[in-house]
């Protein structure tokens, strides 16, 4: 598809005017992964982390209150849906919108945890995510200004998108998905509630793989 080796065969294309939502083997696989983890977030119960007391045999289980569980599950499902949207989108601006939605829901997953370290990390991460909307939307706007369209389908293979826009897109996704900022995330993942917190990693990984595809295509 699009004469690109990473795309694989074309599976589906759905036309909405000039915007065409498509699935190649590559994006289809990413979509299936996102779907799988969204379903996991819907059906699974949170883990109960065990803390061992130093210097003794005692240990205790952290209990997760029901309202926290509900909120985390909702945010994890919302994050999964945003990821699904980002995987399926055929419009660069929609992709950037879904990316920033992933950024917001990632904060949301850990925001209800009453742990100062987690909240501190989530806040700093949120600042990065907010600042990253500048290159993210900026990249999409420069694509629109220089080519006159936002449709990945129309831009594919034309090599009309300037390098600056591509760099901006990748930078923005880095900020939203936190690809190189794992030090910030290490604190975030101290939050209890394993399958939901896992969604943070899955969404950013999938988002990064998708932006690689977009940058190579347009």
């Amino acid at each position, binding site marked *: 598809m699009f004469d690109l080796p990473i795309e694989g065969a074309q599976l589906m294309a759905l036309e909405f005017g000039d915007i065409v939502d498509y699935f190649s083997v590559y994006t289809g696989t990413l979509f299936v992964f996102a779907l799988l983890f969204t379903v996991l977030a819907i059906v699974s119960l949170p883990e109960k982390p065990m803390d061992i007391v130093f210097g003794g045999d005692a240990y205790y289980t952290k209990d997760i209150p029901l309202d926290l569980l509900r909120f985390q599950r909702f945010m994890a499902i919302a994050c999964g849906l945003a990821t699904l949207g980002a995987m399926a989108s055929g419009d660069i601006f929609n992709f950037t919108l879904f990316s920033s939605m992933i950024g*917001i829901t990632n904060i949301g997953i850990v925001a209800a945890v009453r742990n100062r370290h987690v909240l501190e990390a989530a*806040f700093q991460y949120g600042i990065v995510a907010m*600042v990253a*909307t*500048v290159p993210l939307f900026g990249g999409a706007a420069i694509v*629109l200004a220089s080519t006159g369209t936002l449709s990945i389908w129309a831009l594919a293979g034309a090599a009309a998108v300037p390098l600056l826009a591509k760099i901006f897109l990748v930078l923005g996704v880095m900020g939203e998905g936190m690809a190189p900022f794992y030090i910030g995330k290490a604190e975030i993942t101290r939050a209890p509630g394993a399958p939901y917190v896992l969604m943070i990693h899955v969404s950013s990984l999938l988002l990064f793989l998708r932006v690689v595809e977009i940058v190579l295509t347009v």
Partner: protein
Amino acid sequence: MSQYGTVLAVVLVAMAITFVALFRERDDLHRLLLTDLAEVVSLAIIALVGTDLAEALILPGLVVGISELMALSEVYLVKEGLRAVPERLMHIEIMDSAPAILAGVLVVYGIILSGFSGGVVAGCGILFWFFCKGHDEAFTLIETASGYAWALWIVAFFVFMLAPAYWLFAVMLAGGAILLKVMAKMALIGTMRGDRHV
């Protein structure tokens, strides 16, 4: 260099200034405020394109920015353990006499305008009313109205797609619904005045 290129360069300089400011700032609250500056820069880059499509893109960009700011403010409040409610709220005489007239005028004018701009104008009226007169658990009612208005707006879009012949009906429906929705959302800001839950 084209006009677009020149202004883009200016905006990129503004972006660099924002980033330097964020880098140098150590206080968390000030950082949060500075991110708003970054948001304005990103909206400026979109606005530079200057087409109808760009205008349509600004709104979702703005919404995402505001929701991120709100989420981060919540996190900040919890993180810093800020719970105290302001004890003395501003109250001046004009806040007793003006709301009825001003809110009335704004709402009526907003309804005449209809659509997004009408929603904003009427919303300002109701915002002012709630701000001055206080409110009595109006949250649920406003949210319900806003939810139904949103559903009607979507219905109008389906009418556009499935039965284009009834476009006038769809335009009226969408215009009225978006008026209600924007108005409801704006009015909620007026209720956020020292309430226990905000």
